[in-house]
């Protein structure tokens, strides 16, 4: 992303904006957008519903296309500019697998009430060059170039080294930082999140959302989280802590995997308003033969503390991946 500042003076009618290309879209992209906007309409992720409606594949959310057009605009205007208005019409459906290019063109430059305003036409094009979304935008830009902001420092990405692979090697243990704290993550738990979590499995219990009820009837006199809320505070499940990119280089065919077990012991409840710090330590890695081939287990312990440094819970979880040792990775 560019942090370069655009100024009103350098903009001319007819100018094209730097395009933004996104895709090919995956179901995961759409599920994440559904999650962020709480739009759980199945046509965006459920293949059977999609087929039943005669659609070729899950449909990209219109507002996601708007969001990408907005991203193109805000990338271009820089941090001191602002997007004042964006209106979009969804002319044609885009589906999973499609790649979209967001484009824009300056159609006007005016000064309104002392404020420099740019008018743009924006659109998305699919891979056949067809226009699937059309819109227009108003942008406000500063007159002169603002002093250039210092570019944000790039975070070191977590990468895994190693090329020689057997199912478990010393390298894997090193990557997992076995026996040491592998990562510390902090989560702010609010009532809204707890309620969203309980609603996800249709648990209407008032202790999870009603303060008055929880104060009078509840053991802790406050809204608390359901027993398995620690799952939402697990940086491994959320993929914030990714120490196993290297696992992907195992030369045998991966036939499955997932969560094998979860255990938690609470010492205090997780309350709405808590800031929970989670320390993750991988404690073991081992393999055994099971009905679906060679099973590779990774065991981790999460220690949860609240904003006062009090121990809230200890959780232990196991993740398993299965491999067919008679087949190569890509077979």
């Amino acid at each position, binding site marked *: 992303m560019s942090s370069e500042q655009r100024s009103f003076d350098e903009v001319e009618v007819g100018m094209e904006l730097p395009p933004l290309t996104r895709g090919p879209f995956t179901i995961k992209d759409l599920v994440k957008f559904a999650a962020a906007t709480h739009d759980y309409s199945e046509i965006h992720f459920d293949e059977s519903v999609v087929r039943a409606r005669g659609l070729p594949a899950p449909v990209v959310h219109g507002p996601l296309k708007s969001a990408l057009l907005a991203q193109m605009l805000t990338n271009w205007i820089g941090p001191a500019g602002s997007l004042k208005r964006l209106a979009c019409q969804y002319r044609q459906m885009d589906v999973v697998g499609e790649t979209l290019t967001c484009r824009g063109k300056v159609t006007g430059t005016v000064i309104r009430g002392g404020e420099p305003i740019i008018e743009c036409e924006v659109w998305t094009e699919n891979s056949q060059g067809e226009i699937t979304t059309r819109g227009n935008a108003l942008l406000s830009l500063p007159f002169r170039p603002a002093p250039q902001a210092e570019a944000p420092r790039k975070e070191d990405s977590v990468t895994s080294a190693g090329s020689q692979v057997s199912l478990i090697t010393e390298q894997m243990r090193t990557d997992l930082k076995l026996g040491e704290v592998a990562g510390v993550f902090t989560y702010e738990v609010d009532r809204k999140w707890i309620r*969203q979590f309980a609603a996800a499995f249709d648990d209407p219990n008032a202790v999870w959302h009603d303060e008055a009820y929880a104060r009078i009837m509840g053991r802790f006199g406050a809204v608390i989280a359901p027993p398995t809320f620690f799952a939402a505070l697990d940086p491994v499940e959320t993929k914030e802590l990714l120490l196993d990119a290297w696992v992907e280089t195992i030369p045998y065919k991966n036939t499955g995997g997932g969560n094998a077990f979860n255990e938690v012991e609470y010492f205090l409840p997780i309350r709405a308003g808590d800031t929970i710090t989670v320390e993750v330590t991988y404690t073991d890695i081992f393999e055994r033969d099971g009905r679906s081939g060679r099973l590779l287990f990774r065991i981790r312990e999460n220690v949860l503390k609240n904003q006062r440094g009090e121990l809230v819970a200890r959780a232990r979880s196991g993740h398993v991946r299965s491999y067919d040792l008679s087949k190569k990775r890509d077979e």
Partner: protein
Amino acid sequence: MSGATTCPRKGMSEMARRPQAYYEDVEVGGEVPALVKVPTTISLVRYCAAANDFSPIHFDEPYARSRGQKSVIVQGFFKAACLGQMLTDWAGPQGWVKKIATKYQRINLPNEPMTCRGKITRKYAEGGSHFVDVELWVENGQGEVTTTGQATILLPAQAE
């Protein structure tokens, strides 16, 4: 959204209130009232959103089929959450799930019933508190056990 989460506090649905369980009333060998759930594909996506866990096996059907599954599969943690709900429904607002452990032996598919069950295996007092141990399991529509577990619940005593 369920009705309980949208109704005003004064008229809070009975659905959202829970009766209180007491230590004295619990019998070893007794069962916790079962909870039946039929998660949909929407439930699974809503759970992904709430837990920020976007593993494609829970929403991407072509991916799930490429992994040899019939369709997308229910999250292990979703099943644990439902077992947790069964326990907290039963234990009431003064009860507390101290420990819960779950093990996922088989998968569950969306749009199929999932029955959460529990059986009381032990009751004891420790450090002035009263505890009940419960054996947990989830059955699929064919009555097969797909998930097992244990929990320890802290319950109030009538005398307290």
